[in-house]
């Protein structure tokens, strides 16, 4: 088996054995497959792309084909999961705020990753180049990008505050999903991908 993508490796470190996990936008099921085998996790994935549904089923991952923008309340009651994970999906949602609220409702903890729009290269391209940033993490042009709700670490954290969400843990990595010293010192400037572990304040004890 090829090595797990580093951000997924970080996430799986945060997930305890034998827990229940919901993966929003689970892609080809790599994370759930890994968690199932390494941590005996019981999980479901939600995904929209037909080819990914096939890949998930091939891996024996429980996958539900649905559009996350239609919400997840149709399927899941409150507190159905220990963790709800959303990797590189939030920024492509029409209603990220609603989805964030829903994920914190159906799960005890949330794990969210997204590309940091506050990274210095993004800032430089906009400030000096005068054009929308294009990078390894954000490879599309403004007119064909699926990423319609980009944000910075600062933006995300202020939304969390607004929604009564406490940040339990934060990591930033570069586009190759590696830890760098810079990301630790100036995460919003030097981190390319943000990884958060979050919980509702009212659940935090």
């Amino acid at each position, binding site marked *: 088996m090829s090595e797990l993508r580093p951000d997924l490796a970080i996430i799986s470190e945060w997930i305890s054995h034998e827990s229940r996990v919901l993966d929003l936008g689970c892609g080809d099921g790599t994370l759930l497959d890994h968690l199932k085998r390494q941590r005996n996790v019981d999980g479901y994935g939600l995904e929209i792309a037909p080819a990914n549904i096939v890949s*998930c089923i*091939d891996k024996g991952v429980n996958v539900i084909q649905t559009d996350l923008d239609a919400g997840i309340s149709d*399927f899941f009651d409150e507190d159905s999961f220990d963790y709800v994970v959303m990797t590189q999906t939030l920024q492509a949602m029409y209603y990220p705020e609603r989805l964030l609220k829903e994920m914190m409702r159906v799960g005890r903890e949330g794990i969210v990753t997204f590309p940091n729009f506050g990274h210095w290269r993004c800032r430089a391209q906009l400030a000096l180049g005068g054009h929308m940033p294009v990078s390894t993490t954000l490879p599309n042009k403004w007119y064909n990008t699926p990423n319609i709700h980009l944000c910075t670490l600062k933006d995300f954290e202020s939304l969390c505050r607004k929604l009564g969400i406490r940040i339990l843990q934060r990591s930033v990595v570069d586009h190759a999903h590696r830890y760098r010293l810079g990301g630790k010192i100036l995460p919003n400037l030097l981190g390319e991908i943000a990884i958060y572990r979050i919980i509702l304040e009212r659940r935090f004890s």
Partner: protein
Amino acid sequence: MPDILPADSIGLVTPQVAHFEQPLRLDCGRELGEYDLVYETYGELNSARSNAILICHALSGDAHAAGYHSMKDKKPGWWESAIGPGKPIDTNRFHVVCLNNLGGCKGSSGPNTVNPQSGKPWGPEFPIVTVRDWAESQARLADRLGIDQWAAVIGGSLGGMQVLQWAIDYPKRLRHAVVIAAAPNLTAQNIAFNEVVRQALRSDPDFHNGHYYEHGVVPSGGLKIARMLGHITYLSDDAMRAKFGRELREGKINFGFDVEFQVESYLRYQGESFVERFDANTYLLMTKALDYFDPAAAHGGNLSAALAGVEAKFFVASFTSDWRFSPTRSREIVKALLDGDKTVCYAEIEADHGHDAFLIPIPHYMDVFGSYMKQVYADIPPEVTV
């Protein structure tokens, strides 16, 4: 009619009959003292008898799901698209069993067969059977065939309802449940369509209260209308527009009531061919089985409670343009399974074919179905070799 059988077809198949003398107590309170079930099988049963798949048919289906009865057949079985060597239900791997349900008109005991007590055709005297009755009769066939546990029970539409019933009634007798284009019960709109069908059949002057066999006639007008209505609802608006548009058969309007538009010609053809192959009393029974199906009813309408005891792993699929058994209804099933932490995969397949999509080899549909069936195969317990 194939000159050469296609390589991905199971080929020539022969229906078999199982006769049962142990009375079957039905939901309606009546009892069938003895009855026949006609069935077909495709593919080898392994020595552990653990690779068997049960196929449940829909409203107008029968035991002939795949292959050909003779080289003169114009068409193969009704689910040839999914059953055969290398197809999702791979006959190189599975032993597939499909039967004609009780009340059917293709060989199993039903209105057009002889009532052993009176020596005359059952006609309208054949008891109304339910999906639960069917599952019980199918379980008896499984006993007869020596199949303790199905690798999977699979069905589309009304067939999918039978799969749900199986998972509820015999949780240990199936490892996988494949429910395609189905619903946990019919909507009022669906029951309404069925009622129009029943009125069309019963108001035909040749219906004779269901005793038409004795009069040597068939209520063909009613059957035609019933089938035409059915066909309209099995297709989507888009599919009909794409297939027929406003195309005229003779390229001009004739200011008359003969067939003018292509869609009229299609519906009339479908109606007429149905008259030749189907029985009005069976049609009535099938619509009733559909209307009555509601496993949640016994649990105060709570489907999650109805499915609480299921042990099978589920694959649920729906089609985006299916408005008779819409994706919303399949999602209800998925939701109820998730409530009980059941193992479930759900595919909502983009297709503009309407309800009929479940019989059509749409690439993504065949891909996910095939992938799931590989999991079903992988779940077959290893055979113990002595």
